[in-house]
């Protein structure tokens, strides 16, 4: 969720992060329980032409932006993760 202001979908997040969907969905559920992300369903209007059911999306909440931003910032100072995290992720999440 490097773009914290946008809507994200389970499959899309799974592809972008390289995390299996069998792992991603339980993670999303935990984030929902923590209140770090909120969920919703696509509007029918946008779905209409594509002829597919509306998808469930996830958005980072304000509380989530603070908490995830702090986590990412902390991880950047950790030698194990520092090089894995791009600077723009920190900027986007704070």
């Amino acid at each position: 969720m490097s773009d914290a202001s946008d809507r994200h979908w389970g499959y899309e997040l799974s592809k972008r992060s390289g995390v299996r969907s069998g792992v991603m969905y339980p993670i999303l559920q935990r984030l929902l329980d923590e209140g770090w992300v909120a969920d919703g369903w696509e509007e029918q209007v946008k779905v209409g032409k594509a002829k597919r059911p509306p998808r469930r999306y996830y958005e980072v909440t304000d509380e989530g932006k603070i908490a995830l931003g702090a986590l990412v910032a902390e991880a950047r100072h950790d030698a194990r993760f520092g090089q894995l995290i791009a600077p723009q992720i920190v900027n986007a999440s704070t």
Partner: protein
Amino acid sequence: MTALIFHIIAWPTFAMALLVFGFAPGAALRLIVLAYKRDNPRRRELAAELHNVPRIERPFWVAEQLELAIFEGLLGRLAVRRMKRKWEISFFGRRSFIVNEEGVFNRARNGCLHEVDHAVARYVLQDLADDGCLFAALPASIRKAVHDSFMNDDIGKSKSLRIGMRVQVFSSTTVDA
């Protein structure tokens, strides 16, 4: 790797798996999501996500959902049922139950108390019930009493319990249904 798979899996089984997941992933997925409770949004979510998965990946993606449905849906369903039974037995004689989030409380106000039961059971599973308070699956007759009390706004409530809300519901005289 392929040779190993061919040695392990019998041809009829492999052909059946290919048929089910390869040619009818949508139908297979609809069967798989039945493992989730009817009100679980994961049912609709997975069925909708399938349309965004490239066709070539669908068999593998559906197979992953089978694993997820067994551990998240089926086991979750069984665990909630066990907890409900346990707390239903211990309900009588206590005077309060806990609603751990504002949204659940609002749904309770609207008379959807079965959702409270489900959510409460989930919190119990997450080991949040370490404060000695009661989480209860409510019998129908008591649900009505609770609902009436909600509607009459005569329930004292405080936010002293963590992020949650403790709702004082019953006097000893009302818990006899």
